[in-house]
């Protein structure tokens, strides 16, 4: 298998995640999309690490990505809960009191 194959998979994951972030009408879906994006980047790290020969820096970075993803998921879900209890909705479009109109 070549490196490119892994990179293509990572790119597809990334794109799916971004599309979720941009299009879904629920904050939980948005968070799921973010998880996909993070996974894609972690996969890129590991793949490059493997194909650049030697060392485990890429794997370590992926490990940290997982840590960040865990923190992000915990906080994100807490925010969603809070948002729901204060607005009664988890649609991203309902949260724009800083916006213009």
């Amino acid at each position, binding site marked *: *298998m*070549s*490196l*490119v*194959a*892994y990179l*293509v*998979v990572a*790119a*597809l*994951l990334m*794109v*799916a995640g*971004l*599309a*979720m972030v*941009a*299009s*879904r*009408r*629920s904050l*939980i*879906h948005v968070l*799921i*999309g973010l*998880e*996909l994006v993070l*996974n894609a980047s972690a*996969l890129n790290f*590991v793949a490059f*690490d*493997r*194909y650049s*020969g030697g060392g*485990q820096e890429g794997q*370590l970075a*992926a*490990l*940290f990505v*997982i*840590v*960040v*993803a*865990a*923190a*992000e*998921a*915990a*906080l994100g*879900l*807490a*925010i*969603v*809960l*809070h948002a*729901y*209890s204060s607005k009664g*909705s*988890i*649609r991203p479009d309902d949260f724009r009191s800083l916006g213009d109109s």
Partner: protein
Amino acid sequence: MTGEVLAFSLFSAMAVGGAGLALFHRSAIHSAFALLASFLGVAGLYLNLGADFLAVTQVLLYAGGILVLYLFGLMLVPPEGEAPRPGRRALALVLAAAPVAIFLIAFLARSSWGDPSRLPEPEGTVRGIGLALLTPDGWLVPFEYASILLLAALVGAVHLARRSAPKDDSP
């Protein structure tokens, strides 16, 4: 077709298919389980790449921890069950697919990149990662930072979620 190619095909199909399902399915619960499939596929890809420790961590943390967190979240927030806005999703897909296409073109143009013939034999990584994480001139400091980050996230999440329950808490 060697075993490696077979495994890659299987796991990448799982990962990408799960992601696609999560993207397109209207139910949040289904999306979450599709995400589980995607996570497991990525874990398999990690195995394929010789990162055994990472694969196990992926399964444990993502599939075991984070996904459960999502399920709890979904249970606490009533599902609104709505589909993505069609126009917007089309736009998002076009905008997202175009860079991928471009990257694919670029990758294919340089197909010799990352020559698989010179790959070292995969070996166990647990010992190496453990040493790297716990030696002072290795990754010890980032490791400690990560633990602080997790602690802060934990406290923050508890605080946010707790304040939401009683409405008459401090303004």
